[in-house]
């Protein structure tokens, strides 16, 4: 019966057509943040980008050429990844099971507070504390020696492990807080359904909880990676910044604030951003392969 009558509404209103493309009152909410960044960030960013292509001497790409031809500079990328990736992976790997335990606790607040505590410490306190605590005269080695487990102090500061520990201490609470909140956002009915259908705890985790957590974990991974990748003060204070923990920020910092070569510093910063962007985009792409959406299991 509808076939014969001519369609009157085949032209939808502009508003409806926009809505079908996903643009409506809700979409507009993104505007304030976009406008803010356009106003305050984009110009400085482009300035920095252009600056990186206008080196103190040499052609447009001189800074980049210099960076990639000098192992003293390009090695920093690997050094940094060698810190940031393990730290991020370990933080997530620790945060997940702990979040799963904490979620079951009835009095979770105290534990959560303690676990999250390190975010308040600041890099300086952590650096000072670790230098002191893990240092050759610190309580850690002293205790182990007292217990007779070692006979001379462990070397845990001013090397890779010092920076590593401080990144874990400051990075873990961050990942934990996010993970805990993402974990508890999943409808417990789904886990129950999985269990009833025979899934063991590992299988429930693997097939039901993890896939639902991936979007959140991906973001937590990216943010904590980005944070670890930009490590600076603790690499300086706790590491051996001339060698094993000469991270890329140090190179950028030295270019900017010791050699006052802002152009080179911008180039290094751009390289940093590119490396991170590559990893972040890869992670977010993986995230998009997974289900994203409500983690409610049904009605009610």
């Amino acid at each position: 019966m509808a076939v014969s009558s001519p369609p009157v509404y085949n032209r939808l209103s502009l508003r409806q057509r926009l809505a079908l493309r996903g643009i409506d009152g809700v979409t507009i909410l993104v505007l304030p943040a976009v406008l803010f960044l356009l106003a305050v960030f984009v110009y400085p960013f482009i300035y920095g980008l252009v600056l990186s292509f206008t080196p103190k001497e040499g052609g447009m790409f001189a800074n980049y050429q210099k960076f990639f031809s000098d192992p003293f500079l390009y090695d920093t990328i690997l050094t940094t990844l060698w810190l940031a990736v393990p730290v991020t992976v370990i933080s997530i790997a620790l945060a997940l099971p702990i979040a799963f335990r904490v979620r079951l606790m009835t009095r979770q607040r105290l534990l959560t507070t303690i676990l999250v505590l390190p975010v308040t410490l600041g890099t300086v306190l952590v650096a000072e504390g670790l230098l002191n605590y893990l240092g050759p005269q610190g309580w850690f080695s002293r205790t182990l020696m007292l217990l007779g487990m070692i006979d001379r102090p462990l070397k845990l500061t001013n090397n890779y492990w010092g920076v590593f520990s401080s990144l874990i201490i400051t990075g873990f609470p961050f990942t934990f807080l996010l993970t805990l909140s993402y974990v508890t956002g999943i409808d417990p009915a789904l886990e129950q359904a999985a269990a009833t259908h025979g899934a063991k705890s590992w299988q429930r985790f693997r097939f039901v909880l993890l896939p639902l957590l991936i979007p959140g974990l991906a973001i937590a991974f990216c943010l904590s990676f980005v944070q670890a990748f930009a490590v600076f003060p603790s690499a300086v204070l706790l590491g051996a910044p001339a060698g094993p923990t000469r991270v890329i920020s140090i190179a950028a910092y030295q270019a900017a604030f010791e050699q006052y070569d802002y152009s080179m510093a911008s180039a290094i910063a751009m390289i940093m951003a590119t490396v991170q962007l590559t990893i972040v985009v890869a992670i977010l792409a993986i995230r998009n392969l997974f289900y994203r959406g409500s983690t409610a299991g049904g009605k009610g």
Partner: protein
Amino acid sequence: MIRDTTIGAKLWITAVWVIVAFFIINLLAMIATVVISSFGTRWLGTWLPAGWTTKWYFTAWAEFQLSDVLIVTFQIVFTVVALSGLLGVTAAYALARREFPGKKLIMLLFLLPLLVPPITFGIPLATVLYQAGVGGTFWGVVLANLVPTVPFVILVMIPFIEQIDPKVEAAARVFGAGTFRLFLHVLMPMLLPGILAALLLVLVRTVAMFELTFLTAGPTSQTLVVALYYSVFASGVRAVQSIDAMAVVYMVTTLVWLLIALRFVNPTQIVARAKQQQSAA
């Protein structure tokens, strides 16, 4: 929720708790060394300092006019947290709920400030802010700090919002809640754990944001981190104890907020809590 009781599961649980305990013990010991040191006269290769004093706090307090600095720090941090929450959560909502052309580009725009170190854009950003007349003022510092925090909130919040069943939102709309009241009465309470987590981290990051704050702060808008970094990095002699005292002041500044926040909001979500009571009761 389901609890496991097999041997393997018990081992696993024990392992998790052992790790947690190891982490906490070392963490608390580490904090304790700093606190103890900040109250010590001298502490040279022994279990405890030779004597006790509070002078490091008094000298730091006077040297850096900490009462002013702390007030400014609180004001700035509070403003940044509030504004990034406002801008970030709304934008995250749009990004979580809608697919629209250009979304990828916008996501890139939100990613960049987190990826690009402030060295690159800090100086031109400060220039822009000074040109606009806000450089060196309270608002200059706030605006500069918002550059990385707004994107941060957006990224953290997107998965939280995606977790919420859109039907619940639909119900709120049908019953007359416009976007604003939808946020106020439905989304906010459900997102509270996420918002708490995001804002807490924003707070911490803002308190810690040295470069952007330093570059845009005037004589009266310096925050604590500038003083702290000065005491650590400035040339000249400085006693470790006095750095430790500054570090403790810094910690307390953020710790207060953490405690307040966790006092009022549980980072676990309401849905889970209601259902958890069910199995725990």
